[in-house]
């Protein structure tokens, strides 16, 4: 029974967990790309100085951003060439499943993030996560699970800014994805790819035009995948600002990959829409998959995600989220899920979130329910 409970806990952790604080929801204010506030054009990782100012302005405190005067931190920034922080994320959650016991999980993570300028156009980015609780990607019959090690290098990238609109990156990171939400547990992340454990070796380009954004990429295994599961391939992301107000983004994503044990082709469509205080994020991905081992089979998987969010206050955002997963035979599955999420940014160093989620397997009627509370603390910059 214990392995089943552990697997269930892992599944629910991945299903509920989410950093909840990185913000594609900023589309509501016309921030159509992550590069506006993040050093990395793909988003995630440390904020640039403008992003820090927005971060503070959108907090409960709603104050002016003042760079830290701490002499040690200033010295560690080496004249502003090094941007780094330490982030502590504590997540506490309870999960209830049909005909199964309740699970209670405390999932602490410590994340170190560093971006170091190397010359005027180059920078090196690193994100390293340590966690006491191993949070495996849920193993399913057609995808073996992965277990992130206690110390996991999420990002190790070298960026080159060719122009203000074009940048390149090479190294280890998550691949560019559609709506680019930070929650790696959702179906479009954890079932399309490796979710929290996604960190393939890659080269990619970011081209940010007046009304378009294109990000082609090629990738190879990250080295932490299970034997035979290391994937190589390529793809692209292409999106367009329909109305031209930076609040109506539609895009398409393509990924083709193959490994010793499988092949997969994914095509996805997505949109980010902003309407001032509220907005919509939606994505639908279709993956044609082929397994060569264990149960050799060709089948299709469809993963969908839709989120409607509303900024009750600048610092308080409530979201309603719906998800759907369809997997064809011989691995047939029909999952639907709904989630209510509340995210509050108290200061630019403290954010809290709470969520409740219900997931149902339509084929069996099995229902999983979970609730989570999360607090994220960040060192000053």
């Amino acid at each position, binding site marked *: 029974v214990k392995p089943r409970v552990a697997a269930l806990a892992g599944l629910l952790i991945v299903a509920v967990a989410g950093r909840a604080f990185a913000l594609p929801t900023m589309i509501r*204010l016309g921030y159509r790309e992550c590069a*506006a506030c993040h050093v990395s054009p793909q988003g995630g990782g440390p904020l640039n100085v*403008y992003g*820090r100012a927005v971060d503070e*302005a959108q907090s409960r405190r709603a104050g002016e951003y003042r760079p830290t005067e701490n002499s040690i931190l200033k010295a560690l920034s080496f004249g502003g060439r090094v941007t780094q922080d330490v982030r502590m994320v504590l997540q506490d959650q309870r999960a209830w499943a049909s005909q199964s016991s309740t699970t209670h999980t405390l999932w602490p993570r410590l994340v170190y993030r560093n971006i170091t300028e190397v010359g005027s156009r180059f920078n090196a980015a690193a994100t390293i996560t340590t966690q006491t609780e191993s949070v495996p990607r849920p193993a399913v019959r057609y995808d073996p699970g992965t277990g992130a090690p206690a110390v996991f290098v999420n990002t190790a990238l070298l960026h080159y800014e060719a122009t203000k609109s074009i940048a390149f990156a090479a190294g280890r990171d998550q691949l560019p994805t559609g709506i680019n939400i930070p929650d790696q547990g959702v179906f479009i992340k954890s079932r399309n790819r490796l979710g929290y454990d996604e960190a393939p070796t890659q080269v990619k380009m970011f081209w940010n035009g007046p009304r378009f954004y294109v990000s082609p990429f090629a990738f190879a295994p990250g080295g932490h995948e299970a034997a035979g599961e290391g994937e190589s391939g390529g793809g692209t992301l292409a999106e367009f600002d329909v109305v031209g107000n930076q609040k109506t983004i539609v895009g398409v994503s393509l990924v083709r990959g193959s490994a010793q044990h499988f092949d997969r082709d994914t095509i996805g469509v997505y949109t980010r829409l902003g309407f001032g205080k509220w907005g919509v994020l939606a994505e639908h991905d279709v993956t044609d998959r082929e397994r060569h081992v264990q149960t050799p089979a060709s089948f299709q998987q469809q993963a969908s995600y839709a989120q409607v969010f509303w900024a009750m206050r600048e610092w308080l955002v409530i979201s309603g989220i719906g998800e759907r997963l369809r997997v064809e035979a011989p691995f047939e599955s029909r999952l639907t899920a709904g989630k209510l999420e509340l995210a509050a940014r108290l200061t630019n160093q403290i954010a809290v979130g709470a969520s409740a989620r219900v997931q149902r397997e339509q084929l069996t009627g099995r229902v999983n329910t979970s609730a989570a509370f999360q607090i994220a603390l960040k060192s000053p910059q």
Partner: protein
Amino acid sequence: MQGLVRTLTLGFFALTWMAPLVAADAERQVEVRNGTAKFETATNMPAIRVHGTSNQLRASARLRESGGTVILEGLEATLPVASLSTGLGLRDTHMRKYIFTTVEGNVPDVRFVAPRAECSPSGKALTCSVAGELAIQGRSRPLTIVLNVRNESGSFRAVGDAVAKLSTYDIEAPSQFGVKTHDDVRLRLEFTATPVQQQASNGGVR
């Protein structure tokens, strides 16, 4: 019979879209309340633009028709600065401070006046090139707004665009942590003007 035909004909014209404009050479006073004014400006960062909106645009003007051309006269429009919002409270504070506050510390309404403008038919609509003066911080500078006007059941739905330059007001483009806005600010107006007489009978504007 001729009287009936004349009456029906006049009634028909009265109901057509041009009716309020063509009905007579007599002037009509029109008024705008709660119109929408938007602005957008680019920055030195491709991914960042600043948008703002107000729904408190007020205006009034006199309308008359002359030789197939509609003439606007005595146009006056005002926009309370406090009603402009970019969606970020702190940014709004900065905007009011750096763009709209005078050296004396006053924050006068944004004001646009145009003594006269002609509107010519363009398909089912009217195109009005309204040359006037836009006042920011109480300083007036020339500005031309091109309005596209459609008749909607006796009211006039208008959409207009213009570009204002901060430098003409001796206002330096704001800069915040390396992000500097451009000098050009695109303006867009969306409003419904209603004849004042109709407002009285309808109990208010739309």
